[in-house]
């Protein structure tokens, strides 16, 4: 019986300690609840922020994509504009060549000036340094009144043309073979790269036979053919006009 107070005291102490432990547990639990609540608030806030950032990023990506599209369109427009400018410059060059050729042919006051004009057109505008300017001698043969880059025997044989050249001269039409296919070894007097026959009405007044082009020319271009047309028409008229002038002067 002497131990009873001690036992009771012990039980009371354990009970108090348990209560104290329970109280602290409740406090901890309350603290944790508050923490969870705070974290939940923060999580919601962060979630909202993430959504805002995502929306911002999506908007920026869309803007970037739109800017890329605008940039691509601008680059394409610039490229198109450059191509158009190049085309216009090319057209201007072509017109300049045709104008100058026409001017030189029509402004020639004498035979030497006309021959010089034809020579310069063939060399500098067409780009050919192997050619001969032929004139009919009135007796069924041809005479070479100017030439460049062709050997003497070659020129001598042109007074009585044979082969394709003879056919071209007889046909009184322009004939053009792309000289890009001709090599150095294939130079053949009877096969010019281009034969331009100059006629006025039924009368043939001259012809230009061109052989190989300058090395930097890979072939004939549309402008060359226009120059040939211009030579055929304008040089023919100029030759005819000069012949008439010579005839009139001779008559006086």
């Amino acid at each position, binding site marked *: 019986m002497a131990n009873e107070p001690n036992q009771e005291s012990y039980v009371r102490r354990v009970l108090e300690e348990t209560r104290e432990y329970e109280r602290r547990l409740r406090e901890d639990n309350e603290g944790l609840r508050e923490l969870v609540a705070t974290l939940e608030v923060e999580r919601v806030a962060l979630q909202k922020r993430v959504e805002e950032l995502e929306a911002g990023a999506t908007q920026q990506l869309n803007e970037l994509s739109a800017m890329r599209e605008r940039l691509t369109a601008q680059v394409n427009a610039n490229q198109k504009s450059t191509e158009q400018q*190049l085309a216009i*410059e*090319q057209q*201007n*060059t072509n017109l*300049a*060549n045709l*104008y*100058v*050729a026409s*001017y*030189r042919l029509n402004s020639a006051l004498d035979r030497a000036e006309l021959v010089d*004009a034809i020579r*310069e*057109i063939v*060399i*500098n*505008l*067409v*780009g050919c*340094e192997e050619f001969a300017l032929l004139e009919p001698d009135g007796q069924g043969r041809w005479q070479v009144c100017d030439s460049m880059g062709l050997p003497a025997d070659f020129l001598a044989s042109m007074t009585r043309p044979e082969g394709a050249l003879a056919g071209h001269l007889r046909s009184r039409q322009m004939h053009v073979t792309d000289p890009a296919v001709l090599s150095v070894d294939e130079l053949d007097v009877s096969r010019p790269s281009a034969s331009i026959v100059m006629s006025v009405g039924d009368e043939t007044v001259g012809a230009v036979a061109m052989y190989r082009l*300058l*090395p*930097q*020319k890979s072939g004939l271009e549309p402008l060359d053919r226009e120059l040939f047309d211009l030579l055929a028409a304008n040089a023919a008229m100029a030759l005819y006009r000069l012949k008439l002038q010579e005839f009139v002067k001779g008559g006086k």
Partner: protein
Amino acid sequence: MTQRKKILLVDDSSTVLMVEQMILKNSPFDILIARDGEAGFETALKERPDLILMDVMMPRMDGFDALREIRANEEIKDIPVIMVTTRGEGVNIETGYTVGCNDYVTKPINGSELLSKINNLIGS
């Protein structure tokens, strides 16, 4: 007010000179003309052009000799020179660069190419 730049065209061919003038007609340059290498050198000395377009084959003094004279003269040795060659073969181009040309174009002259080379050397 900035002074317009001057380009000296040196060529004995009236046809080439006319074509060059027409290509440069709408460009912001004043054009000077000389008909051979010697006249080209003298005009360069007198007029101090900003650029010279020099033909190779010319009477009296050819383009290479004229360029040698220009490069040897203290007063005009720095003027950019574009050679205009009839033959685009390597030897012509090499000779041009050896005597001091800055660039070259071949005949028949391509307007876009010529304008681009001029702009590269002296701007438009």
